[in-house]
């Protein structure tokens, strides 16, 4: 078995119109820029995929990555905790124009909903958001005298994530705080595609340090020297 793909275009070829796509990263840290841009390039060439639901902590920054997806009109809905950034213009304009739907989720609830989706747990109770507008319409139950809100799992058709090392079986390590949501999203998507900074042979990663075991990964593609979203934005980059 070898999960390695030879090209980025091959990595994003089966994402359909209307699909739900989890995209790793917290701001620019961990954002799989090359995978996202390959998806945008496919859309510009073929008109597909569009009408996507994108799950990420944020809603893009500047004119690259998720912001560029929104700018091109590929995204129908964002599920995120914090749709603000240094330059949130693209999302803000689309949202205020009614062109994109927003499901706002507290950050810890977003993480746990994704984890639950990957772990086969359809719902869970959390103290987060009890008594606030974000708990409206959700069941509340008392445990040991305290109120908790029921939240549902979150799953996706695809996850696009970035990792540091990946072997041909899909075992992954991450780089510093770029880990964030990616191990959870790898679990929660029907198909997880990873861009790794260095692809290695099985055995090259110490089993003690593997963060995402290969069972959660369907395909990986090597992108040596990947772009960092924050650096792209500081340079004023646009995609395309």
């Amino acid at each position, binding site marked *: 078995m070898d999960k390695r793909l030879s090209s980025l275009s091959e990595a994003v070829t089966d994402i359909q119109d209307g699909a739900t796509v989890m995209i790793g990263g*917290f701001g620019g840290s961990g954002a799989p820029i090359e995978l996202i841009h390959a998806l945008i390039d496919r859309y510009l060439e073929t008109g597909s995929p569009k009408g996507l639901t994108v799950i990420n902590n944020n809603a893009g920054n500047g004119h690259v990555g998720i912001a560029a997806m929104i700018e091109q009109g590929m995204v129908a809905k964002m599920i995120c905790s914090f749709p603000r950034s240094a330059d949130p213009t693209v999302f803000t304009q689309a949202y205020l124009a009614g062109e994109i739907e927003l499901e706002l989720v507290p950050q810890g609830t977003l993480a746990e909903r994704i984890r639950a989706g990957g772990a086969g747990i359809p719902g869970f109770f959390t103290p987060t958001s009890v008594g606030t507008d974000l708990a409206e319409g959700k069941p509340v139950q008392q445990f040991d005298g305290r109120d908790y809100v029921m939240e549902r799992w979150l799953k996706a058709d695809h996850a696009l994530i970035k990792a540091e090392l990946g072997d041909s079986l899909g075992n992954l390590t991450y780089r510093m*705080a770029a880990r964030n949501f990616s*191990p959870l999203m790898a679990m929660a998507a029907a198909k997880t595609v990873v861009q790794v900074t260095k692809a290695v042979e099985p055995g090259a990663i110490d089993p003690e340090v593997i*963060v995402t075991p290969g069972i959660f990964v369907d395909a990986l593609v090597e992108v040596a020297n990947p772009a960092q979203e924050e650096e792209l934005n500081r340079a004023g980059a646009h995609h395309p």
Partner: protein
Amino acid sequence: MNQKLSNAQIAWRAAQDIEDGAYVNLGIGFPEMVARFQPPGREAIFHTENGVLGFGRAPEPGQEDWDLINAGKKAITLKPGTAFFHHADSFAMVRGGHLDVAILGAYEVAETGDLANWSTGPKGVPAVGGAMDLVHGAKRVAVITDHVTKKGQPKLVERCTLPLTGVGCVTRVYSSFAVVDIEGGRFVLREKLPSLSMEELQNATGAKLHVEGAVGDLICPEELADA
């Protein structure tokens, strides 16, 4: 009223209550300043929602590694003992009661301990981040804030009028005028600026300030007054 603490002085005062070895989350923005004023001989271990524990100070300009950031998307640094983890573990630390202190900003704090700090109403794009999680789980949830708004309206109130972040969650408020505990649905005054009379302080507060025992003088380093 002619005197109030600067943000740096409020942050300094909040830092004095953080014990050596405490696990601490500082909200993005103003609360991040608290890290600058750890008393000598004490070392808190800072947690940030995006999966880093025990990180160091901001790097020198030009030395940033943008894969190493805090929840405010600002660059941080490693130091011996730094740990990385994914987001579900990070919020397990938060909701699971493993943090000793969370320090947050506020639009309004009620005498009931309710906090409003994420939304000023239905206009614009709503964003919540980790605020609603952070108010649950930390052993102490403290607020640092100006005592009144820019228009002079009290921020310490009987009931919040803005959308809530959490219900009954705040245990202490460090304001530009006073240190106030929230106990049994009441504001209990612990310290106040010596230059303010009780009447002046009460007039700037939107709910009754209770006094139990001595009220200390709120005195902060003068050199931080302009910071």
